[in-house]
């Protein structure tokens, strides 16, 4: 009741009469929450689209059996069908194809057992094709295919029309036998899916005798775990028997690095937002010091004052967070394509068709914003209650110097820094598999570091500013001297503004440095592995939206080597396998040949060790894999092959950034022996010395162009594309960084405005004794540039440290130890310019206010 009165009669006046300040504080929270909501929604959308696809494709299957990426023998199907308790077990082939005409739309091919599959999945066929559901007719014709109504309408395809598709076997013609209503599997990938009979699919996609998956439904009453065990017993090792949910989780794990780094930056954005709230509430307390004194004298208790400030913050934060949530939704709409693009570039092909709106994401992040605001407001609100009414009322100028520079702060700062170091040390010394090596831990270290440095900014300022007086006076004359003095006198409050800038600049610099380190390492690595002249594949090697890469038969290698100008051709195949529950990338190539012209980046072992790969059951693993599974050269690990588990000797450890979860290099002969897979994803072509690369490329295209659509990309072009792709994946990070800079800018405006308002009298006196208006503005602007420059300099130093932590904790965990820390000097220079420039801009309005101070009013004001 009291609180309601205070809010209505006191706080509301501030809202009505001090709009500018309020709007800026709200904008800060709003942007912070918006960033979190946008990132969360975009991430969720990508995940949801994966999950949806998996769910629609799964149908009623409760278990899914998968083997190696290249498929496993059909014979397994019968074994599973015979397991007691299995209701239905149906085979599935999943492949990708693309339409040959138009914009070469990519689609997913679902190869199924036409007679059995309706037990697991529901297909609803449109009325126009009512005569087709006869499965026998469908089966009888190998070129039968069902398209979705959605895609058919978009591509202008009618029933019974012939369509040409790019398959493993080259370009093939199919006849559209019917159209699927958007239900069940037909909803996957926004309708970019086609259904074929499994036998026809095996033929078209080079999987004769093999299937990709078995979908199993269980008899009622059967226990999930016992069934899993029973099935496991009839299958060779290396198969995974999972629930659809587990597959969703696998995707989540696959995307974890992406989600981690996005989580990291959105957390940092929130941290900066919190700083802004802290800043705003502290300043409000200072400005309303006298008001607090009066209220206390009139009989408002400490608790009431505390509650008043918290409730004000709560209301402001609630409104701002709500707006932020809305804004975040808009941001998410705008960026979801970008996120999907990043994910496609780096992980899995995805097309996000709609934004996965989730009240939980929106409200949860909004609530986080409110909670963070409240947390940030607690300290300054407490400081407000600590004022004794007698001293508050005296309206002496603010001097919290003692409290902010006091021992407690020093201790807190030292403790924070210590905590940062200790946490980091614990993180570094922990086993790779330990729970300590998580994003949360490394983030805690980074936040403690930021906190520690932020807390000691007033101290640093107090030390540094006096040193600059001479320079300031020399550069800016009297105004410079005065600005320096103001800064020094108000060290504690300006410290808060400096710390806010410090945080955002540190964030900016740290990710710039971390990203630049990753980029540099990636580029060096790509340079080391791509030494061929031309890369040949069926889809653009880096295309994401349009055509996928469809494998080619292995015997194309010999034919390609016969093309004029070609010196040699290397096959490259990639697949995934399941190692200890994790999806691991398997990269297959001709190791001996490759080593002749590529300087492999070996971190443990030697070239000779690498040469021991061909013909033996030996492999090489990348650092990420070695670290995660604690593997040294000489160890033996057991990998699942279609024919069962096989032990492989690890001969060396190399640098490879192709997969977050680990990569294994295997010689092509070894692979073919165990996997019985002759397919090739990419041919790497070396051109004879002295021959024109472009001519060789034309010759290759001319030789195979009739059979299949081929891309022959000069390696140089490929590298440029990779760089572009990498840069694209960091676009969001940069966007959030800029957002935090804006928030910090708002912080500067609020701080300066408050200090100008509070110094009304002082400015009046200065004006009264003959200071010109533009001199007053100059003082304020110089002051704000100084704040910005101090924040910038400290922020860059902090950013360099945090960037290193980020690299150690976030990236190194996935990439391995071979990433060296590269400082991005350009970004650091930009950060400094940005900090100073933004601060100068932020100082404009307060400067104008200061210049407009009415001398007479200012001097008569108490």
């Amino acid at each position, binding site marked *: 009741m*009291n609180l309601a009165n205070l809010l209505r*009669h006191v706080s509301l006046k501030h809202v009505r009469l001090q709009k500018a300040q309020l709007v800026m504080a709200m904008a800060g929270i709003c942007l912070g929450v918006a960033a979190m909501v946008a990132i969360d929604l975009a991430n969720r959308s990508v995940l949801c689209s994966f999950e949806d696809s998996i769910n629609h494709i799964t149908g009623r299957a409760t278990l899914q059996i998968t083997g190696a990426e290249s498929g496993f023998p059909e014979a397994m199907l019968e074994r599973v069908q015979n397991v007691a308790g299995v209701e239905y077990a149906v085979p599935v082939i999943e492949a990708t194809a693309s339409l040959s005409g138009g914009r070469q739309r990519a689609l997913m091919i679902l190869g199924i057992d036409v007679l059995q599959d309706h037990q697991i999945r529901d297909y609803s066929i449109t009325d126009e094709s009512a005569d087709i559901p006869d499965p026998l007719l469908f089966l009888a014709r190998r070129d039968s295919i069902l398209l979705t109504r959605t895609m058919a309408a978009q591509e202008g395809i009618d029933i019974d029309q012939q369509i040409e598709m790019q398959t493993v076997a080259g370009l093939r013609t199919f006849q559209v036998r019917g159209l699927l209503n958007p239900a069940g599997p037909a909803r996957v990938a926004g309708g970019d899916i086609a259904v074929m009979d499994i036998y026809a699919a095996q033929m078209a996609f080079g999987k004769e005798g093999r299937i990709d998956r078995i979908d199993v439904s269980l008899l009622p009453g059967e226990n999930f775990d016992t069934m899993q065990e029973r099935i496991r017993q009839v299958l060779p090792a290396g198969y995974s028997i999972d629930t659809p949910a587990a597959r969703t989780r696998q995707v989540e794990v696959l995307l974890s690095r992406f989600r981690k780094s996005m989580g990291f930056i959105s957390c940092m954005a929130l941290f900066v937002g919190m700083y802004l709230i802290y800043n705003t509430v502290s300043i409000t307390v200072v400005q309303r010091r006298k008001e607090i004194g009066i209220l*206390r004298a009139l009989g408002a208790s400490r608790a009431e004052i505390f509650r008043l400030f918290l409730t004000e913050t709560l209301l402001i934060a609630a409104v701002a967070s709500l707006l932020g949530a809305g804004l975040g939704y808009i941001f998410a709409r705008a960026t979801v394509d970008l996120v999907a693009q990043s994910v496609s570039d780096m992980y899995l092909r995805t097309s996000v068709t709609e934004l996965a709106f989730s009240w939980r994401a929106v409200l949860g992040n909004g609530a986080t914003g409110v909670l963070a605001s409240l947390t940030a407001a607690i300290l300054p609100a407490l400081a407000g209650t600590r004022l004794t009414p007698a001293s508050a009322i005296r309206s002496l100028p603010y001097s919290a110097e003692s409290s902010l520079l006091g021992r407690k702060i020093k201790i807190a700062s030292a403790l924070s820094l210590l905590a940062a170091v200790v946490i980091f040390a614990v993180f570094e010394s922990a086993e790779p598999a330990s729970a300590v090596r998580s994003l949360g831990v490394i983030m805690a270290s980074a936040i403690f570091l930021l906190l520690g440095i932020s807390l000691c900014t007033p101290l640093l300022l107090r030390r540094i500013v006096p040193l600059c007086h001479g320079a300031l006076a020399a550069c800016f004359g009297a105004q410079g001297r005065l600005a320096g003095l103001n800064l020094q006198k108000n060290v504690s409050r300006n410290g808060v503004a400096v710390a806010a800038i410090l945080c955002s600049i540190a964030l900016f610099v740290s990710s710039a440095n971390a990203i630049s380190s990753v980029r540099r390492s990636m580029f060096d690595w790509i340079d080391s592995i791509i030494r061929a002249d031309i890369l040949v594949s069926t889809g653009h090697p880096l295309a994401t939206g349009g055509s996928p890469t469809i494998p080619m038969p292995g015997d194309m290698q010999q034919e390609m080597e016969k093309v004029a100008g070609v010196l040699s051709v290397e096959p490259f195949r990639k697949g995934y396998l399941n190692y200890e529950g994790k999806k691991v990338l398997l990269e297959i190539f001709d190791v001996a040949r490759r080593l002749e012209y590529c300087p492999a980046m070996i971190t443990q072992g030697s070239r000779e060790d690498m040469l021991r790969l061909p013909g033996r059951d030996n492999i090489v693993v990348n650092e990420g894999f070695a670290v995660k599974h604690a593997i040294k050269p000489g160890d033996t690990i057991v990998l699942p092959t279609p024919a069962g588990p096989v032990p492989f000797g690890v001969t060396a450890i190399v640098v490879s950034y192709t997969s977050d979860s680990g990569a294994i290099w295997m010689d092509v002969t070894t692979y073919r022996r165990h996997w019985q897979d002759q397919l090739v994803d990419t041919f790497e072509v070396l051109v004879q010395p002295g021959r024109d690369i472009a001519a060789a490329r034309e010759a290759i295209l001319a030789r195979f162009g009739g059979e299949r659509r081929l891309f022959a990309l000069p390696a140089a072009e490929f590298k440029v594309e990779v760089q572009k792709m990498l840069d694209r994946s960091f676009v969001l990070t940069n966007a959030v960084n800029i957002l935090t800079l804006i928030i910090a800018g708002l912080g500067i405006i609020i701080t300066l405005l408050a200090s100008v308002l509070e110094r009304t009298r002082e400015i009046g006196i200065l004006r009264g004794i003959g200071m010109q208006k533009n001199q007053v503005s100059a003082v304020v602007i110089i002051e704000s540039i100084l704040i910005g420059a101090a924040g910038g300099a400290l922020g860059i130093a902090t950013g360099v440290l945090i960037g290193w932590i980020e690299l150690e904790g976030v990236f190194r965990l996935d990439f391995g130890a071979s990433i060296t820390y590269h400082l991005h000097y350009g970004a650091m220079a930009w950060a400094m310019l940005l900090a100073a420039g933004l601060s100068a801009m932020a100082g404009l309005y307060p400067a104008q206010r200061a210049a407009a101070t009415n001398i007479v009013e200012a001097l008569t004001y108490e």
Partner: protein
Amino acid sequence: MIELRNAGKTYQQGSREVRALRDVSFVINKGEFLSIMGPSGSGKSTLLNLMGGLDQPTSGEVFIDSRPLHGITDNELTLIRRRRVGYIFQFFNLLPLLTAEENVGLPLLLDGLPFSEVKPRAAALLDKVGLKERAEHRPEQLSGGEMQRVAIARALITGPAVILADEPTGNLDSHTSEEIFLLLKSLNDQGQTIVMVTHDPKAAAYGSRIITLKDGAPDQDIVIGGDNP
């Protein structure tokens, strides 16, 4: 009404101890108009702050209406301030954003009364101090004398046992000051106990009793009353 027993106040100023008040004992009776005089630094304001519960003594005892002000919690002290004491300050101390009426009603608003109930009482008091027409004005639109009248109305609104005034005319010219004193005097004539701190002898002369302070202790206690020498 108000009683001080050996009340003392010591401040810690850095490493130095400052004794602002030492062993002050006296009683203020109901209906008195007490002026407290003394040079700057003699502890006048500290004494007033102790009597009004803005501050607590570091030694000794302070009672208002036989209730102790020492050794009670901040919240209890706050309640006494809110309900039993009316404060008038040199710098008026009105909230700049609130209208005159809202400023006057603030102590009742703090007590949780709805504004609809507070408003007529505030209006009546503003009428009493001669500012009926100024109810909707904010402090910046009022003259110094008017601001102090608003502050007096605010001090009166809870019907306090005592009004404590700290240099109420320190910022006003002689004529305006006289008007304020006449207002206070008339309140005193109606039975309102008033304690006023001042270093202006003209102001002190309105009191029925004058206590002068010297170096944190009472020097003289002059009761004037009606008996002329």
